[in-house]
């Protein structure tokens, strides 16, 4: 896709049931998003081990996006509620360690929201780019 | 300066053979013809096998110096490195360094009866010794191999036994902890079978390798049979990293298993603290 920002790596952890399907839907709907994002499918945002996010930053990711089902729509009923608690804490802790808040994001994208997924990725990429360019 | 002791020689996997569900045998060929000539070892020594990108681990040479066309190892899948080894394909490049440690004192065993007692993958550590003894069979009297595994399916080196048995004065006794249909050999734990076989300690050496619990009971049985501690030889396994007596982890008392072992007589081990 042509709107890729050079040399920018974003890891996207997408929940199998909503956001991963949503990302598929993006393509079907002919929406485009920057291909800086590298997608890793996870079972559920509730399964999103913070270690993996830290590992991603450690291994050189410029940004990380975690995306799952909207609250109330979790395939496992409550996984994303746990994630909704983990996210602010993790973001705050990472920021304390010097990982800028523009580098770590989360979103709710359902299987039908292909367009929203494209928007989210665009926004995340822009934020990460802003961090890289403007410090 | 002398050769770098931590740098491996490159070698290629030339043959892979599945022995059991989680044990495979490998043949490695050293790439450098010069190294192939100088890389020699003695039965009982070990080498460090290097899987590039994963790490190093210690294995005993499975083949003796009398059959040294290739370097052979028999490896059970237990950890990270061994798992990677099991995924190797023919032609893959690995690293070898060694040989390290001491060897079986065959010169002291001339003219004696040899009794090999092995359990599970422990046979791999004794294979070099067994095959050396068979290749130089005239130097020894009777050679008995008592080998046990959990089940008939877990028996290693099945296809080698017929060749081994052809050597004069050689007897192979197989046992499985649990039998199965078509199993024509003994059923029962190794120590029990040992008691049943009742070998004479006269002019004999017993060489053991296997899981710690087997070794413990076999030792007891052998002592009951009248074997003296000097007549019992075993080869130890420890976590090792360097193979050179430097990294410190195989240190038991003032000995380093990698440098002063791995072959010990029971009379040596008796005096060591129980930390191996």
């Amino acid at each position, binding site marked *: 896709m042509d709107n890729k920002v050079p040399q920018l790596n974003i890891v996207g952890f997408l929940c199998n049931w909503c956001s991963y399907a949503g990302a598929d839907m993006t393509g079907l709907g002919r929406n485009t998003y920057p291909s800086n994002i590298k997608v890793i499918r996870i079972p559920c945002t509730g399964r999103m081990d*913070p*270690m993996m996010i*830290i*590992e991603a930053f*450690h291994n050189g990711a410029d940004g990380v996006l975690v995306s799952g089902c909207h*609250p*109330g729509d979790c395939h496992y009923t*409550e996984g994303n*509620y*746990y994630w*909704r*608690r*983990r*996210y*602010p*804490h*993790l*973001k*705050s*802790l*990472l*920021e*304390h*360690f*010097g*990982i*800028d*808040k523009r580098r770590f*994001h*989360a*979103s*709710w994208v359902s299987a039908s929201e292909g367009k929203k997924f494209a928007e*989210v990725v665009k*926004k995340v990429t822009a934020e990460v780019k802003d961090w890289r360019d403007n*410090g | 300066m002398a050769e770098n002791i931590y740098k491996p020689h490159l070698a290629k996997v030339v043959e892979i053979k599945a022995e059991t569900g989680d044990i495979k045998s490998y043949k490695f060929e050293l790439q450098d013809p010069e190294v192939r000539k100088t890389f020699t070892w003695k039965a009982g020594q070990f080498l460090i096998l290097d899987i590039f990108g994963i790490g190093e681990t210690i294995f005993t040479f499975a083949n003796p110096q009398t059959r040294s066309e290739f370097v052979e190892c028999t490896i059970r899948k237990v*950890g*990270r490195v061994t*798992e990677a080894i099991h995924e190797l394909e023919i032609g893959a490049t690995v690293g070898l360094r060694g040989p390290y440690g001491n060897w079986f004192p065959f010169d002291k065993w001339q003219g004696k009866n040899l009794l090999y007692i092995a359990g599970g993958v422990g046979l791999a550590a004794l294979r070099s010794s067994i095959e050396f003894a068979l290749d130089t069979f005239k130097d020894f009297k009777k050679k008995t191999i008592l080998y046990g595994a959990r089940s008939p399916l877990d028996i290693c080196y099945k296809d080698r036994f017929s060749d081994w048995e052809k050597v004069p004065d050689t007897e192979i006794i197989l046992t499985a902890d649990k039998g199965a249909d078509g199993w024509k050999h003994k059923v029962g734990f190794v120590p029990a079978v040992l008691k049943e076989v009742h070998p004479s300690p006269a002019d004999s050496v017993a060489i053991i390798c296997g899981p710690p619990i087997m070794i413990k009971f076999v030792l007891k049985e052998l002592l009951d049979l009248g074997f003296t501690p000097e007549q019992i030889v075993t080869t130890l396994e420890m976590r090792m990293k360097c193979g050179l007596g430097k990294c410190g982890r195989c240190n038991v008392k003032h000995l380093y298993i990698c440098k002063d072992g791995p072959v010990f007589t029971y009379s040596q081990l008796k005096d060591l603290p129980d930390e191996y």
Partner: protein
Amino acid sequence: MDKELQDLIKKLLTEKKVDYAIGYEKAYDEFSTRPAFVTSAEDTARLIFNKYCINNLGLYLTKLKKNKIALICKGCDIPTVRELVKEKQFSRENVIVIGAACDGVLDKRTGKQPEKCLNCGVKQPKGADFTVGTAKDSTTARNFNDVAEFEKKSSKEKMQFWDRQFEKCIRCYACRNVCPVCYCPDCFAQRSMPEYLNKNVDAEENKMFHMIRMQHVFGRCTDCKACDTACPVNIPLTLLTKKLAKDAKELFNYESGADMDARPPLSTYDEDDPESGIM
């Protein structure tokens, strides 16, 4: 006070109420103490309590799970006991908490009182089974001013600060091993399948270790400063543990080791939780 303490423990040991009493004894000089494990009444004479008793003895509860223990705790160590009981690592019946009134301890490295002692509300221990001595609480309350000050830095400055700190780290794991709530028998740091952390010691690897450890003790860390005082190269880990306490308080209104009935913040949820900027 030492006498009172010794007599109490003597009594507990003689009456066989406990197998072990864990307290403090003099270490290599007058300015240092070390944990002492006392099993007989005759042995209690070596127990002391003074301003050099900096260790948090709650650490040993998870190591002596099967025993009945009398544990000498400063006011700030008692939350550790509660937290471990709450995490079902130790049953409350098996531990007799002896609160020792404390006028603040001295950090053996600096010879000064750490910040936690200057703003301490538990100099007179709360929630102990027995209390020895009396002490007056600080006039100033515990606060997060120093963390808030650090938070004002830019992310680049923070990164540089921690890079310099973790450059020093020798990964001896003293911080992890003295941490009462770091009791996992198989720490992620030593797992090989999958391997999260390489043995290779450099600032980046070290930083990752500390990040993951801090994440793992979130909502469980009682901010006891054991890791901070244990560090042989003086990495100010208190900046991190205090941040955890601050976040738990601000994000989830939770304080580790305080309320026995409150659910740990990450093991529960509320359908009405805020969205916290999730897109």
